[in-house]
C-alpha cells in the first residue's frame, strides 16, 4: 500500500508555459506570415491568454491539488492554437471582404467564459459523487435541452440543422451542454443497474448476448439518437450520443454482447438513414466518390478543397499565412483541421491528434485509478465524448469516414462547444483529484474508530 500519486503541480506549470509558447507563438507566427510584422496586440492578447491559464492553474492548485497534471496544459495548447488559426482565418476573411471576420475575438470571449465556468465547477463541485444524486434530474434536463431548438420563438435553424437556440442575441447549441449532462445521467443509471444489464442471455459463437428484456435502455437511447437524426438533421450528434451510451454500457457491464447488439442497431439505423434521408445518402456518395460531385451543389466541393489543401500542405505545410484556407467553406469550424493541415502540415496534424489521444488516455487512466464506480463511468464517458468527436470530425475531414458535422473540441470556432468542453475538463480534473489523493480514508477512520470503541465498551461491560 505504499503507493501514492505525487501532486505534480510543478510539472503542470512547466507544461503550461510550453502550452502558452505554442499558443502565443502561433499567434505571432500568424502575424509574421500574413502581415509581415509581429501583431500589434500580441502583448495584450498574450497577457490575456496567460491570465486565463494562470487563473485556471491557481484554481487547480487550491481546490484540486492532486488532479492530473497533463490535462490542463493539453487543453490550453489546443485552445491557444485554435485561437491563432481563427485569427489567421479572420485576417484572410477581412482581406477578401467577408462579413464575419471576428471569430478569434469572439472565441476568446467564449474561452474566458469557459475558463470562468471551469473555475466555478472546480470550486463548487468538491466531490463528483454528489452528482450521482442528480442522475435523473440531469437526464431530464438533457432531454429538455435537446428539445429546446423546437420551441418556436427561441429555436432557429442554421445551415439546415435545428440545433440552435437564440436568446437575447446569443445563439447557443443546447446539445453541447446536454452531452455532459447525459454522461452524468448514464453513469448514475449504469452504476446502479449494471449488474442486471450484465446478466447473460443466449450464447452465440463465444459471445453472450444480453437478455431480450434488458434491451429497453439501449432501444430508448437508439430512439433518441434516431429522433435527433431525423428531427434535427444532425448526423454527428446522433452518432455521438449513441456511441457514448454504447461505450459506457460496455465499460459498465464488461459484456462484448452489448457491442454486438449496438453494432447491429447502428447498422440498421445507418441503413435506414441511408435509404430514407437524402442528406445521408449524399454524404455517403461524397465520401466514396468525392471528385464526381466537385462541381455540384450540394456537392463535395468543401471536402475536395480540404483534401487539396492538406495535399498541398504536405509534410510541414505552407507556413501560416501562405495557404488558401478561405477556399474551404466553414474552415473556422468543422474544417479547421484542414486549415492546419494546409499551413502547418502533417507534422502539426499528427501532434494535434496525439494531444487528443493523450486527453483520452488521461481520461481512461482516471477511470482506472478512480475508487468509485460512478467516477469511473463518468471519466470513461467524458473521455468517450472527446474521442468520438475527434474521430468523427477528423475522420470526416480527412475522408476516412463519411463527413458528419461536429466541432473539433477546443480548436473549432463555437462558443457552446468550447464552454462545454472546459466543463468536461473541470469534471475530469475533479474526479482525478479524488482518485489520486493519497489518504482518502482519514475521515472514515475517525468515524469507524469511534464506532469500534463504543462497540467494544459495550461488550466489555
Amino acid at each position, binding site marked *: 500500500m505504499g*503507493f501514492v500519486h505525487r501532486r505534480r503541480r510543478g510539472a503542470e506549470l512547466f507544461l503550461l508555459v510550453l502550452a502558452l509558447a505554442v499558443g502565443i507563438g502561433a499567434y505571432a507566427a500568424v502575424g509574421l506570415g500574413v502581415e509581415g510584422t509581429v501583431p500589434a496586440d500580441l502583448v495584450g492578447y498574450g497577457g490575456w491568454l496567460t491570465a486565463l491559464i494562470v487563473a485556471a492553474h491557481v484554481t487547480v492548485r487550491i481546490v484540486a491539488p492532486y488532479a492530473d*497534471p497533463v490535462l490542463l496544459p493539453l487543453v490550453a495548447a489546443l485552445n491557444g492554437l485554435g485561437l491563432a488559426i481563427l485569427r489567421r482565418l479572420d485576417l484572410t476573411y477581412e482581406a477578401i471582404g467577408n462579413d464575419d471576420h471576428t471569430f478569434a475575438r469572439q472565441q476568446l470571449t467564449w474561452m474566458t467564459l469557459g475558463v470562468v465556468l471551469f473555475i466555478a465547477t472546480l470550486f463548487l463541485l468538491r466531490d463528483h459523487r454528489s452528482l450521482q444524486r442528480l442522475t435523473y434530474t440531469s437526464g431530464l434536463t438533457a432531454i429538455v435541452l435537446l428539445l429546446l431548438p423546437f420551441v418556436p420563438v427561441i429555436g432557429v435553424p442554421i445551415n439546415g440543422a435545428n440545433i440552435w437556440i437564440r436568446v437575447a442575441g446569443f445563439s447557443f447549441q443546447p446539445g453541447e451542454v446536454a452531452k455532459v449532462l447525459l454522461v452524468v445521467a448514464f453513469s448514475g443509471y449504469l452504476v446502479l443497474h449494471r449488474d442486471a444489464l450484465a446478466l447473460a442471455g443466449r450464447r452465440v459463437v463465444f459471445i453472450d448476448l444480453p437478455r431480450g428484456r434488458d434491451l429497453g435502455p439501449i432501444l430508448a437511447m437508439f430512439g433518441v439518437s434516431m429522433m435527433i437524426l431525423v428531427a434535427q438533421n444532425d448526423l454527428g450528434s446522433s452518432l455521438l450520443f449513441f456511441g457514448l451510451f454504447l461505450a459506457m454500457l460496455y465499460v459498465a457491464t464488461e459484456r462484448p454482447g452489448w457491442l454486438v447488439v449496438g453494432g447491429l442497431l447502428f447498422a440498421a439505423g445507418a441503413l435506414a438513414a441511408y435509404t430514407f434521408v437524402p442528406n445521408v445518402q449524399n454524404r455517403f456518395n461524397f465520401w466514396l466518390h468525392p471528385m464526381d460531385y466537385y462541381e455540384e451543389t450540394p456537392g463535395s466541393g468543401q471536402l475536395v478543397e480540404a483534401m487539396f489543401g492538406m495535399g498541398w500542405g504536405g509534410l510541414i505545410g505552407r507556413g501560416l499565412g501562405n495557404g488558401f484556407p478561405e477556399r474551404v467553406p466553414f474552415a473556422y469550424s468543422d474544417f479547421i483541421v484542414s486549415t492546419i493541415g494546409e499551413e502547418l502540415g502533417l507534422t502539426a496534424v499528427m501532434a494535434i491528434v496525439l494531444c487528443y489521444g493523450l486527453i483520452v488516455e488521461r481520461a481512461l487512466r482516471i477511470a482506472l485509478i478512480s475508487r468509485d464506480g460512478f467516477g469511473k463511468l463518468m471519466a470513461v464517458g467524458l473521455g468517450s465524448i472527446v474521442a468520438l468527436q475527434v474521430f468523427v470530425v477528423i475522420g470526416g475531414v480527412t475522408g476516412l469516414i463519411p463527413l458528419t458535422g461536429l466541432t473539433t473540441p477546443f480548436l473549432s470556432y463555437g462558443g457552446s462547444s468550447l464552454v462545454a468542453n472546459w466543463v468536461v475538463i473541470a469534471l475530469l480534473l475533479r474526479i482525478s483529484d479524488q482518485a489520486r489523493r493519497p*489518504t482518502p480514508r482519514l475521515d472514515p477512520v475517525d468515524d469507524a474508530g469511534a464506532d469500534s470503541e463504543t462497540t467494544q465498551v459495550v461488550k466489555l461491560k
Partner: protein
Amino acid sequence: MSELTLFLIRVAFLAILWIFVLSAISVIRSDMFGARVPETARGAAPAPAARKSAKPGKASKKPRRGAPTHLVVVEGENPGTRAELADAPLLIGRGSDAAIKLDDDYVSTRHARIAASGDEWFVEDLGSTNGTYVGPVRITQPTTIGVGVQVRVGKTILELRK
C-alpha cells in the same frame, strides 16, 4: 519577409509544438508509477494530516492491547469459518480463491477484501453487487475496522477477533 525567414518560423513553431507534446508524454511517463513512500514516513509526511494523525495514533494503542488475530464469520451460512490475519490481505467472496469462502447467494464472487495499513485493518468493497456494510453504512471506499466491528456482506456477518 524573406522565404527563408518564413521557413525558419514554420520549422521553429513545429518544433515548439512537438517539444510540448513530447514533454507531456514524459510527464505522463514519470507519473505512471507515482511515488513510493516508505511505510514509516506515511503517517508523518502529509502536513495537513498532522492534526488528524493524533487520532489514528490513539487508535493504534488498542491493537497493541490486543491486536486482532483472525477474522471470523459470526452469522450466516457458514458460522465459525475463520481466517488468520497473518495471511492478509484476505479475500471474502464465493469464489474458490477467497480466504473466507461463503456459500451465501447474496455474496459476489470477489466481494470484499480485508487488508492492513500500518497498525490498522480496513475492509474494502471490490465492486460487489449487494455492497459491504460496516455497521449500518454501505462503504464506498476502504474503511477502517476494529476488533468486534461487524462487517456485513450479503446475509453474512463477519468480525475481527483477538
